[in-house]
């Protein structure tokens, strides 16, 4: 009987090896393990065995049953895996075919740069101050130490609403508005639209954007102004950026400076962007004029401060090598989608 059992096992294994589907597998199970199956038939003959033989053969039969059952289960799993693989293969798609378009909007490049500037200054503790674009002459000029008929007014051809009201020609009036309301320490920036009576061409626009900054506190020095602008410039234009200060004149700061950054395209060696000078003029700055402080009821003997301002269009145009300013106001998607 033992031989018979071993033969059954061998037969079952041989048949299982040839099985290629769930139905055939079931067939094999019935053939060997079913009520009328081969193993059952052998076990029915157990009665003829001796008392010594019976447990031995019984154990062997149980072992063989368990082995066949396990092999069937394995086979079943293998068939399942194979079937899945086959199905997945059939589901193959062309991954190089185009994806479904998902619209993603973009911020205007002017706003992107403005936001970067704001982020940098906010990280240095500046808050963002806002002021009106339609402004009093007093704030745009007089309180900035530019009295009526001052020749400095010529450099900013101004749009007027009435004799007293104008479109601000600079973001500087926000300085005054802040200093009138807030006591030092003051650390603000103010980005926004400004207006000058320039006809539109590749490098001029009657409306453009500036960002103004103001710091007022006890003991602020010109060295502090340089230190702060250097930190800013390195964050904005790269770690190796250098600054160059040139004396200049703004009525509301004294001393005043124009500030150049080393060309971030060529690193200062000279290229088309910096017109071979290695430097790009980027902002104006200076120590707040005592008349301006006094006009806002801040004692210049006790407090000092610095202010700076830059044109956002200029930075955008240099940064992205845009050669025509008009692009910035046409809002052509073929342009906007590049940024």
């Amino acid at each position, binding site marked *: 009987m033992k031989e018979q059992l071993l033969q059954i096992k061998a037969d079952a294994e041989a048949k299982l090896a040839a099985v290629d589907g769930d139905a055939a597998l079931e067939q094999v199970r019935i053939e060997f393990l079913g009520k009328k199956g081969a193993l059952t038939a052998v076990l029915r003959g157990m009665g003829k065995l001796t008392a010594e033989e019976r447990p031995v053969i019984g154990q062997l039969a149980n072992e063989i049953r368990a082995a066949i059952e396990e092999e069937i289960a394995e086979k079943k799993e293998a068939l399942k895996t194979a079937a899945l693989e086959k199905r997945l293969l059939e589901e193959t798609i062309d991954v190089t075919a185009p994806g479904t378009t998902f619209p993603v909007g973009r911020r205007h490049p002017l706003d992107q740069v403005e936001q970067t500037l704001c982020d940098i200054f906010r990280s240095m*503790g500046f808050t963002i101050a806002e002021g009106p674009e339609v402004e009093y002459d007093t704030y745009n000029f007089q309180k900035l130490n530019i009295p009526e008929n001052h020749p400095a007014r010529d450099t900013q051809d101004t749009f007027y609403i009435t004799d007293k009201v104008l479109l601000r020609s600079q973001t500087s009036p926000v300085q005054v508005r802040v200093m009138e309301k807030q006591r030092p320490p003051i650390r603000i920036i103010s980005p926004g*639209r400004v207006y000058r009576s320039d006809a539109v061409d590749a490098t001029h626009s009657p409306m453009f954007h500036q960002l103004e900054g103001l710091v007022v506190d006890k003991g602020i020095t010109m060295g502090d102004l340089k230190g702060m602008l250097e930190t800013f410039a390195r964050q904005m234009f790269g770690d190796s950026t250098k600054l160059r200060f040139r004396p200049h004149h703004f009525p509301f700061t004294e001393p005043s400076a124009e500030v150049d950054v080393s060309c971030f395209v060529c690193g200062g060696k000279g290229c088309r962007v910096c017109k071979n000078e290695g430097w790009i003029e980027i902002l104006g700055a200076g120590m707040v004029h005592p008349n301006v402080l006094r006009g806002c009821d801040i004692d210049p003997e006790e407090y000092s401060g610095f202010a700076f301002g830059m044109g956002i269009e200029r930075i955008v145009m240099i940064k992205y090598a845009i050669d025509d300013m008009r692009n910035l106001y046409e809002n052509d998607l073929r342009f906007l989608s590049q940024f």
Partner: protein
Amino acid sequence: MNLSINWLNDFVSTKDIKLQDYCDRMTDTGSKVEGYEVLGGDIENVVVGRIVSIVPHPDSDHMVICQLDFEDGNEPTQIVTGAQNVFEGALVPVAKAPAKLPGGVTIKAGKLRGVESNGMLCSISELGLTTHDVPYAIEDGILILQEDCKVGDDIRDVLCLNDAAVEFEITSNRPDCLSVIGLARETAVSFGRPWTLPTPVVTEAGGSIADYLSVDVEDGNLCRRYAARVVRNVKIAPSPKWMRARLRAAGVRPINNIVDITNYVMLEYGQPMHAFDYAMLDGSHIIVRNAAEGENFRSLDDQDHILDAATLVIADEKKAVALAGVMGGANSEIKDSTVTVVFESANFDGATVRIGAKKQGMRTESSGRFEKGLDPENCMPALERACELVTLLGAGEVVSGCIDVYKGKKAPATIPLEPAKINHFLGTDLAPDYMERILTDLGCTVADGKVTAPSWRADLESMNDIAEEVIRIYGYNKIESTPFSGAVTAGSLTPRQAYKERLQSLLLGMGLYQANTFSFVSPRNIDKIGLPADASERNSVVISNPLGEDTSVMRTTLIPGLLDVLSHNNAYGTQSAMIYELGHVYLPHESADELPDEPLMLALGFYNAGDFYTLKGMVDAILTDAGLSRIRYASCKTNPTFHPGRCAEVFVRGNMKIATLGQIHPTVAANYGFNQPVYVAYIPFEELFAVASFKKQYKALPKYPAVTRDFAFVCQRALEVGTIEEVIRKAAGKLIEKVELFDIYTGDKIDADKKSVAYRLTFRSPDHTLTDEEVTKACDKILAALQKQLGIGVRG
């Protein structure tokens, strides 16, 4: 200001400094150099030659063959020319091949109609000059030299072309630097070298000015000083070569000796001068007065002006002869026949000159200088220099004596010198005597711890000004950078600024591009978006001096700008576009002298990117993101910008209007070149921010299951589903969680005027599993309410 380096070297020697180094240092100390030009730098190998013989060209009837001698021991050089004015013995400029001429022209040896020619004889224009530079020359012929020169001389030396002109951009606070002397002073201090300022010496020829002239100044505040001298026996002639060359280097056109002297002195001293013909005066009395209201005046450029009382004039007893500080009158202009000249060197109030010039629409070199505020102390030296030049040029005889009415003398400003304070302010550690030296070199007097500013530096008023003088000479770039300390400030955003950012992130996430359009627009925009004659949007802030009508009023709505952007993109063939602009509108108050309100508005819109419901979904997203619920849409048939059947107004908090959205009216769309539908939503940002709420509180996740029931109702086609939903919500009681419309059917399975609407209602209780009975009870209430209030029932 264009500075001739030769002229500069009269006062301070810069011959050992490379031009580029000179420019760099001057920029560093505050006199910004815009660029420089080496005059005659593009002329090479052009020398004086003598024509020794002329023979006709064998193959040309208009060319001749010249032999040129350079007295260099060589055989004469043969050159062919087509000019008619050459003659044997003439001295002419010869471009000896190979040579270079202005404009990148190179001259090589070659053959002209078979005859060898080893260069070119030059006309003035070929040398880059005009008859203003060389008055005796003719335009269309070879320059026959009448200069004191020898054969072989370099033409650049002969015609004073060996100069360089440096272009300075001088800031408005430094009119003293609009002069050779002012820049010489700056040069001397910048390079730490000595300089000399000679005192002009006038040779008086007798007579007495009192016999010629008396002067009255009516208002010493408007004319602080009026100095004058008279020159008789004037011989009008061209000025000498050196003067013409220097004027030319400074960018001024030479005219005649008298006019050139006034310009020369203006450039050298920074003091505008005026010369007028004494013979044209009525009487011998000059009055500096305000013009009479409506007074007529013809300026020497032959323009007629009607003056008003704000304008200052120089007048004789009967008429105005000059607009003070602006321009002389045609009636007293220097002519070739002039024999007696009055030189005026005066100081006029800057604001008065500025107003006068502006009113007459004539900015001149003179008015541009006066309006910056000039130094009255400079009047006399300038006048003396002019008369010194008269004698030097042999242009006339200076009558003895001079007139000097000086009513506006002011004491110079005195400022304490506080080196410690200056160092602290600058963040430097400069020695007090170093500061003193710089200030003294700049012309200040330092004594007893006080700085007295020189008369030409009215801009020096306070410690800051003194600090700037010191630091600009020491070098801005030598200041050590320091991190500034002080109270810690937080660079935080205000809630409004934070919401602005959040809102834009959402808009970008929905696929909208940000646009930036001009704040000033055409008033016709309001017509273009179909608004009526009495629309409040027509009440706008009007610019009094606009560039043009298209940019003449401040926008009161963003919709036209947004439609312009969509239209532009459509016109340029962009298939579809989704755009937003978040910007200010400007809403005036009753008085234009009051500042307008500048609320922020949001406009968004698209074409070929969806329909009304796409737009509505966007608005829903914006409002939901702002923490708003109970959003009510109501159809709006009366907004002329929008399609009357496809426009909604959106309300929150009951009746607070928060948005308008819809398809743009086809007529309006056509105004923007669209024949396809365009959709726009318009949301006032300030109102939205006012009702937005970002307070969040955790609500436990539901513990008990929800029950859903689906119903289809049949109703009139025109009935808005919003109405149905409202009735459902009101009737449903507490258990309703969600009311979802999932289908609207119209078609042949239903009456033509009817539609079927299908809803899925979700019910849930926070504290128990709902029973079938509870849900049925709630549904029955809903069905009853629908039947009663709207007369609609479940679809059979």
